[in-house]
């Protein structure tokens, strides 16, 4: 019994220690932002590997999600004779929720795991140590550009997801199911609010970008430098980021649309 309590305490202390190390790392990462403006080349390379490589998966997923939304929505809305509002339904669900959230989940799987593996392997092969001994700060040199790249790419990817989703919904709704084109757009434009919906969606994706990239970098940087440790850290990245995204989505939604 006592042993269990001790174990619980140890686990608690472990979690708090990790949280502390995580926040310290974030602080150091942010401290490197100033130096990055001198070397924009580093950032461009990272946006390439973070953003460009995710364009395809995010774009394709967005298109299909939009198409499915239109298909499902049409059958439900047509029962009330409200097919005209299909555009609203598709756009609202994409811009408010699915765009930021699904793009972030894809981002965690596609980019987060890759970042963790990359940083973890750099640690395991002593590359980070090597940089340190070359008097180069590995956090500023390696982590900061990746962090900023994630921060910049995430909202762009989410926007890409939503926009292609709306077009996919348009294609299915108007092209295949015969919803009136004018009604599709005008209802959407009348009901979707720039501040309430679009801006809040962008804010969500910015938050998700920070959290996903941060978790991925921390897991890689904090990984046990063995192949097993890195593979575990990669799994943890995907699990933790996905949970964080879904949990934060609830909090942010409650804050933004709650009143």
């Amino acid at each position: 019994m006592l042993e269990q309590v001790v174990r619980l305490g140890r686990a608690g202390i472990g979690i708090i220690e990790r949280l502390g190390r995580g926040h310290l790392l974030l602080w150091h990462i942010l401290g490197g932002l100033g130096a990055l403006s001198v070397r924009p080349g580093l950032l461009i390379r990272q946006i390439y590997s973070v953003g460009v490589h995710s364009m395809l998966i995010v774009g394709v997923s967005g298109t299909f999600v939009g198409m499915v939304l239109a298909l499902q929505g049409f059958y439900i809305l047509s029962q009330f004779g409200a097919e005209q509002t299909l555009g609203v339904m598709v756009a609202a669900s994409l811009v408010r929720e699915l765009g930021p959230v699904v793009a972030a989940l894809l981002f965690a799987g596609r980019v987060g795991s890759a970042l963790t593996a990359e940083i973890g392997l750099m640690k395991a092969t002593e590359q980070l140590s090597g940089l340190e001994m070359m008097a180069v700060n590995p956090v500023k040199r390696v982590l900061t550009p990746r962090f900023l790249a994630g921060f910049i790419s995430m909202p762009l990817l989410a926007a890409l997801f939503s926009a292609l989703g709306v077009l996919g919904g348009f294609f299915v709704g108007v092209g295949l199911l015969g919803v009136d084109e004018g009604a599709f757009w005008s209802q959407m434009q009348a009901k979707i609010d720039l501040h309430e919906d679009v801006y809040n969606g962008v804010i969500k994706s910015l938050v998700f970008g920070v959290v996903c990239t941060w978790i991925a970098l921390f897991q890689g940087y904090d990984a046990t430098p063995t192949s097993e440790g890195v593979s575990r850290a990669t799994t943890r990245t995907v699990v933790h980021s996905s949970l964080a995204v879904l949990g934060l989505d609830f909090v942010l939604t409650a804050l933004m649309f709650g009143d």
Partner: protein
Amino acid sequence: MPETSDEPLIKIRGLKFFRGDRAIFDGVDIDIQRGKVTAIMGPSGTGKTTLLKLIGGQLRPQAGTIHVDGQDVHKLGTRDLYRLRMRMGMLFQSGALLTDINVYDNVAYPLREHTKLPEAMIRKIVLLKLEAVGLRGARHLMPSELSGGMARRVALARAVALDPMMIMYDEPFTGQDPISMGVLVQLIRSLNDASRLTSIVVSHDVHETAAIADEIYVIAHGQVMEHGEPKVMMDSGEEWTRQFMHGLADGPVHFHYPADHLEQDLMEKRC
């Protein structure tokens, strides 16, 4: 404050370092003389790599001091520590080359980070350093295309790119075939003598190390067991040192990990 040249370059006094409850170092004193090759030897797991990380300021000791060129490493601020590290080269066991850039860029890396030299000048330095390790022709290869020995030689070229005052070699001979081993042994010695470097070699390969070292420290159980010139160490009267230097299977260090009697163990049913 620079000290006179016959002062040791590195002075370690009363060094204590613990991992959890386990003492890695428990009161270690080491002097590393300028211009010499000093070997730190000991069985696996005695914290030889840890010692190098302590000297480089990557780890902090619980007690004791390490002075490098008159500066207390663990009392320096980040800026001064980084400045000191620029004068230290370190060769990691794996080479620690950056895997996403090629050999040329790896060697050029510290130059581009720390100097404002024009690219033409960097090119000359890089090619000269690569020539010194015999890999000028391999400059367009990626680290993944190199053999272990070649990777270490590239890493060595990178370590000397900034013309440091000292180089620390972490297990340079481990896992090398006899030819690359011979190449590395010769490189370490010739680099040391040609550039008036100070070298620290951490290793447990007795013969290769004894061939190039001017002085050997043997560390075990968190203590310096003995130190002296290679010849003296080989003929040491101490039983422990003799066992280590000659690789005897049994001696003060037993072949068997502590266990119950074999008969008793075999008779028992449970695992």
